């Protein structure tokens, strides 16, 4: 069964305290791995797409990486405005179907 698991479920960081969020996937075939940010009461906002193991993408304090089994979202020196739920999704190869994880709720304290 195709599955995406995110850990931890929730994470509290002090401002400036770097950490990583994990997204492990078990799918029949991976077309792409997507990261989104979701603020309360809003729709997911696209962050990154990764297509190949070893690929890395960066945007401000965020860096996403991909291996054959998992993806990491590294947050460097986070700020309170980085507080949100971070979702990952695996697109199944040969399809336009996406399997989402349940998300990591990040809280950054000032």
């Amino acid at each position, binding site marked *: 069964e195709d599955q*995406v698991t995110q850990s931890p479920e929730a994470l509290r960081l002090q401002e400036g305290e770097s950490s990583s969020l994990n997204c492990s996937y078990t799918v029949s075939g991976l077309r792409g791995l997507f990261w989104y940010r979701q603020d309360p009461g809003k729709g997911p*906002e*696209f962050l990154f*797409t990764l297509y190949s193991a070893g690929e890395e993408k960066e945007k401000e304090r965020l860096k996403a990486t991909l291996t054959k089994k998992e993806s990491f979202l590294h947050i460097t020196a986070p700020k309170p405005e980085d507080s949100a739920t971070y979702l990952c999704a695996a697109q199944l190869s040969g399809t*336009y179907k996406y399997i*989402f994880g349940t998300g990591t709720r990040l809280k950054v304290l000032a």
Partner: protein
Amino acid sequence: DAGITQSPRHKVTETGTPVTLRCHQTENHRYMYWYRQDPGHGLRLIHYSYGVKDTDKGEVSDGYSVSRSKTEDFLLTLESATSSQTSVYFCAISDPSGGTDTQYFGPGTRLTVL
């Protein structure tokens, strides 16, 4: 931001009544999707469309139907709403012809079935 709107944004209805949610896009994207989001579950695909009048089922399609008569509009209908369909519904769009399969999401519709 991708030009995606959803209507209504909030709705309260009673069990057994029909409900239609609308997704409208101004991006001319070919693919459109309907998801539901519930606590403890990731976003789950209900139905998607790969063109006008072309639709397919997702993993939680029972009790839902969709229609797409124009590129810009994708309708989700609950023929007879049940309390288990209380959820937040998100529409998404994508355009693979642009070289990426990235989905862009609308603001969501919060539906409560009493």
